[in-house]
Every structure is written in structure tokens, then in C-alpha cells.
């Protein structure tokens, strides 16, 4: 009875206030929490700063070390204590969706005009059983990078990156001939992550299908896998690749290229800013990672996705942020303005990248890129004992190309069936 009176009084007060034109105090602004993995923290900070500057509801970022994101989220979901938003390595998306860690945002995003413009790889990866659980946030993508100074010395056109696997081989030979300390090609032979990022796109470009999405799917299907491994094997036996590549677990993924003694290698878009800062005298170019035939190209779409963990206390506001981060304002003023790739493919060529065409090429690579939709990505690829890296080492360094592919296929099937 007393409650009913209170409600009646409040309604009267509202009516009076509305009638008299008195401004009512705004609803209290909310404080949203967001977890971001350390390697994506810089880009996330730029975006949240921009959001905070224009919205009453504020977002507070908490940076989580990369290798702790999975355990933190799992424990948080279990304990009912999760952030309102989370940004993490996109490759964990299938595992998180299946584990039920994330909120279904399908209906809310269906009509969003910007969502359809996000790089296709993100939309595919964030879908599970026809439902959507997240979207692209701060991407990175693999590209081919080459040393224009060495190209000139070797008599190659510095404005033409290799456009086929055969051209990589041919150009690498010419660059190797420049001197005993100069090598045509480089890759980190003991780094599974580096190779899925830079080597697998050449296989995909050549028509291969990499990892099994379901237990019955065939892994490493298509001739592209063998063609790329054979190319690497040939370049290895011909001495076009430095011997240290065999033991490089990623520690020197880009260090050798920075020394100016490497002609061509796969890398990530991040290297452009790195090289400009750390090797300002080097003239380098970028291109797409090619396949066997001219016109074939691909890339691995890496970086972070953004999602709403199940149990978020401000899910509606979190959804607003997700929609906002796909807007022109967020993509251009929050990301592109700070030399960070936008996740929307249609904004690859924007006013901020005009002065740096190499970044435009990188942003365009997002549009042709792929990312494997797979459970147990770490078991299959990312771990130091994965069948993926065992295959590369067995094929390139031991010369057992067919046997290594067969062994990796068998092990990947076993993992997919777990």
C-alpha cells in the first residue's frame, strides 16, 4: 500500500516537472569494465579513450597478460564475475563460443549497417551454429615484405613484389647471389604461430584448406600445402634461407629483416611502423602473400575480437559500444588516425593512410584474408609440439615432405575428434 503511494507521488512529480518545463536530472551514468589482452591494449586504449570523450557512460580498461586471458575469463564465468566487454585473440573464438562464455548478439547486429562491412574473416569466425557472438575489434594481418635496396642491387624491379611462389624462388636466388651474408628469404622455422600467420596464407592462396572445423573434415587438403613446403625445402637446400631459421622460435621473426640482409619474408602489418622507427634508412615494400598462380593471394587475419561475456552486468551498454566501434568515427578517428588498421574492409583506403600506401596494401589484405575456424587451435597449430610445426620442420629441414604432411593430417584428425 505504502509502495503504491510512493509510486503515485513520483508519477505526479514527474507530470508536474514535465508540465512546468523543469529539467530532470539525467539517469546516473554507468561505468563499464573491459578486459583486453596486452598485445591489443594500445589500440583498445585509443578506442575507449575516444568513446569516453563523447559518452556519459565510461569504459575502464584492464589489461590482461596474453597467456592469462583464457583462464581469467573461464574463472570469471564460473564465479559470475566477468567484465562487461572483453577483447581477445580471435583464434579462441570457436572454443569460447562452444564453452558458452559469450553472449549471443545476432539479433542486435542483424540490422547494423556497418556490420556487413567488417572484414569477412571476423564475421565468419565469430559465428557458431548460425548465431553471432562478437565482431572484429583491432586487427592485424599478414603480408609479404621485401627489401627494395636488395631488389635494386639484384637487378629486380623494386616496385614489383613477387606475385607467385615461383617468383619468390627466382627473386630469392638473385638476392642470395649478392654476397655470402645476404639471403633471399627468411621464415622462423621453429615458430608455429609465425608460420600459420605467414606461411599458411601462401597455401590457402594456392587452393589449400588448412584446418578441420569438424571431426570429419580433412585437414591440410589440397596441393597448395605440398607446393609451399616444397618451395621452402628447395630454398633451404639451395642455401637461400639462413641456417638460423631452423632454430628460430619467433624470437628473431623480424630481427633479421631489420638487419637489411634478407630479401623477402612474410610478416605482419605491425612491421611497417617498426621498420620506420628502427630501420629508418631501409627502403622496403609490401605485397600480398602469393599462391602458385598469378592473381592468387591471401593473408591470415589476426588480432582481436570484441565480445560480451555471459553474465555482463551492462550488456545493453556493451552492445552500444560494439555498434559504435564499427562506426566511421571509431574506425577512422580511433584506429586509422593512430596508424592502426580498421576492421572494416571498406575503410582500407582512408584519408589517414594516404601518405603511406604500404598501410593501404596491408588494410586491403584484410579483405582477402582468412582465419581458420577450428576448435583446439593451440593443439593443432600454436603449441611448440603441434603437428603443424612438426610438419614444417620435417618437410623443410628433413626433406620428408609427403610423410610429414601425412603425419600431420593424422594427428590433426585425432585432435579434431577429441
Amino acid at each position, binding site marked *: 500500500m505504502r509502495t503504491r503511494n510512493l509510486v503515485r507521488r513520483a508519477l505526479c512529480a514527474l507530470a508536474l516537472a514535465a508540465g512546468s518545463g523543469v529539467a530532470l536530472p539525467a539517469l546516473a551514468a554507468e561505468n563499464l569494465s573491459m578486459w583486453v589482452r596486452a598485445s591489443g591494449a594500445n589500440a583498445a586504449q585509443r578506442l575507449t579513450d575516444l568513446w569516453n570523450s563523447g559518452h556519459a557512460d565510461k569504459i575502464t580498461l584492464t589489461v590482461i597478460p596474453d*597467456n592469462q586471458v583464457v583462464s581469467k575469463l573461464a574463472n570469471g564465468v564460473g564465479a559470475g564475475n566477468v567484465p562487461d566487454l572483453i577483447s581477445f585473440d580471435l583464434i579462441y573464438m570457436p572454443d569460447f563460443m562452444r564453452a558458452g562464455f559469450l553472449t549471443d548478439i545476432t539479433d542486435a547486429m542483424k540490422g547494423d549497417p556497418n556490420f556487413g562491412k567488417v572484414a569477412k574473416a571476423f564475421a565468419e569466425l565469430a559465428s557458431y551454429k548460425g548465431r553471432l557472438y562478437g565482431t572484429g575489434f583491432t586487427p592485424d594481418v599478414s603480408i609479404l615484405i621485401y627489401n627494395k635496396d636488395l631488389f635494386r642491387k639484384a637487378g629486380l624491379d623494386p616496385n614489383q613484389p613477387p606475385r607467385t611462389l615461383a617468383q619468390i624462388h627466382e627473386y630469392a636466388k638473385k638476392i642470395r647471389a649478392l654476397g655470402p651474408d645476404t639471403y633471399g628469404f627468411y621464415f622462423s622455422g*621453429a615458430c608455429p604461430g609465425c608460420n600459420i600467420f605467414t606461411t599458411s596464407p601462401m597455401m590457402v592462396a594456392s587452393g589449400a584448406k588448412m584446418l578441420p572445423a569438424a571431426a570429419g573434415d580433412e585437414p591440410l587438403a589440397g596441393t597448395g600445402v605440398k607446393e609451399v613446403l616444397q618451395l621452402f625445402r628447395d630454398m633451404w637446400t639451395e642455401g637461400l634461407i*639462413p641456417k*638460423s631459421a*631452423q*632454430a628460430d622460435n619467433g624470437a628473431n621473426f623480424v630481427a633479421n629483416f631489420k638487419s637489411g640482409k634478407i630479401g623477402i619474408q612474410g610478416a605482419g602489418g605491425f612491421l611497417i611502423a617498426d621498420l620506420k622507427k628502427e630501420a629508418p634508412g631501409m627502403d622496403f615494400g609490401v605485397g600480398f602473400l602469393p599462391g602458385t598462380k598469378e592473381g592468387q593471394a591471401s593473408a591470415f587475419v589476426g588480432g582481436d575480437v570484441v565480445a560480451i561475456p555471459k553474465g555482463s552486468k551492462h550488456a545493453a551498454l556493451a552492445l552500444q559500444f560494439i555498434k559504435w566501434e564499427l562506426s566511421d568515427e571509431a574506425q577512422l578517428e580511433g584506429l586509422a588516425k593512430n596508424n592502426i588498421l580498421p576492421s572494416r574492409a571498406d575503410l582500407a583506403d582512408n584519408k589517414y593512410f594516404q601518405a603511406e600506401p604500404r598501410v593501404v596494401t596491408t588494410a586491403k589484405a584484410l579483405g582477402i584474408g582468412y582465419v581458420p575456424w577450428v576448435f583446439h587451435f593451440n593443439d593443432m597449430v600454436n603449441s611448440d609440439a603441434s603437428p603443424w610445426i*612438426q610438419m614444417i620442420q620435417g618437410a623443410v629441414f628433413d626433406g620428408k615432405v609427403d610423410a610429414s604432411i601425412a603425419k600431420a593430417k593424422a594427428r590433426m584428425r585425432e585432435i579434431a575428434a577429441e
Partner: protein
Amino acid sequence: MRHSHRRHAGLLYVLPALLFVAAFVAWPLLQLLRLSMTSASMLGPGSFVGWNNYLKAFRDETFWQSLAFTLQYTACITPILMVGGFLLALLVAEPGRIARATRGIVFLPVVIGLGSSSILWVGLLDEQVGLVGRLLVDLGLVAHPPVWFVDAELGMWAVIGTVVWKVIGFGMLLFVAGIQSVGIDVREAAMLDGAGYWQRVRHITLPLMTRTLLLTTLVSVIGSLLAFDQFYIMTAGGPRSETFTSVYWIYQNSFIYFKQGYGAALSMILLAIVLVLSSVHLLIARRGAPA
């Protein structure tokens, strides 16, 4: 009655220590045991699977290979650390400015984290950009800079070299304390009896610091059996998974494959192995040590 009262008082005295051990050793251990009997993953709680994880571990070739590699690494590095640390201690045990300075210099790497020192050595040992290879070439010892981590054996010795550089100062310091604890009167008596320097070291210093030697060996052996950082950073388990240590393989399963239940079972097995080896070591020590 009085006797019982005294016993209760004694219990009260040890109660804080007992509580500490119960809370921080026994309880976590029980939790680990419980976890090891589940299919728990980072992505879900899992269910009770009994001894299945242990049975799986016995069939896990990489685990036993990693254990064999860990034992090999321990067997190789321990004598180097012990003999090297003792010889260094003999050099710097006597008072003097140069001895003190040398002690400080040798001990300096001990204060660097093992992770940091491993990263430092990865760069120094790199064939393309590292200084060590260049130095060896300039000295005429090799024609080309070696690629250290391309071969499991060579990689292990490279890691051993860097770990010895990093930790030998700690053993040296313990040995210095042991040497200095030997009474000057005993050493002088031996000198008066005509014993030379190495005779005094062999027949006086070494027997009187047996406990220090055994303690240092035990600490070193346990540290080596639990080796992780240096291999994680320098070899990444390669080439072809040949340099995985036991702890590294446990880490792979628990945090990379998310298989926490299985990782817990591997941890329990490793714990049992370390416990048995340490007990054997202590038994030998007790028999061999002077009364």
C-alpha cells in the same frame, strides 16, 4: 599429568607451522590430486575420470621423453655447477679486496631473472645477429657462426652454458660459507703437520663441509629437475620436441592445450619422482655425513 601438559604446550608451539603447512602445502596438494582425477579443462569443469589421466600419462611418449631429457640435463649440469662453484669458492674464500670483487662479479648474474638472462642469451647466440658466433669466427675457432639450437644435444649444452653463467655464483657463495666455517685452528694444525694446499682441501675442507656440499647439490638437482624458463625461451622444446623438459610439457598440457586435469596428473607424477630422488639423496647424505 605434567608430562601431558608439556606435550600439549609443545603442540601449541608447532601449531602455527602446522597450520601454515596444512593451508599452503597439504590443502593445495589435495586439490591438485582431486583435479588430477577429473577431465577439467580451462574451458569447463569436466567430470571425475578416476585414474584415467595417470594411465594416459604412462602412454604419453612425449612426457617420458621429456623426463629422460630432464634427467640428462640434470646429470650434465649438476657436476659442472658443483665442481665449478667449489673451485670458484676456493679462489675467493680468502679475505682480500680482489677476492671480494671477484665474488661480487661472479654473483652478479644470480640477481638477474632466469627469463631475462635467457632472452639476453637468445640474442647473443643467434647465428645472424649474435655476438658469440661472431667472436668464435673472429678468434678462428669456427669457420661459420654455429646455429646452437638446431640440434638437441648442442642446444642443451648452449642452455647449460647460459645457466651455469647465471647460477654458479649462488653455489659459490654457499661453498664460501662452508669453507669459512672450517676452523682456522684445524687448517693451521694440518699445515704444521706438513699438509700441502690440495691435501688440506681434500682431507680437511671437503670432509668438514659435507653438509654444505649435500645441501647445495640437493638444491641444484631439484632446480634442474624443475627446469622450464630457459628451455621455453631458448629452444621452445625444439628441434622436433626433443628439448621439452617435464615441467615444460606439464605447462603445454595445462595452459596451451587447456587440459588442467591431465596437467595435474603429470604434476603429481613429477612430484613423486622428485620426492623419491630427494629422499634417496637425503638418505645417502645422512649415511655419509659425519656424526
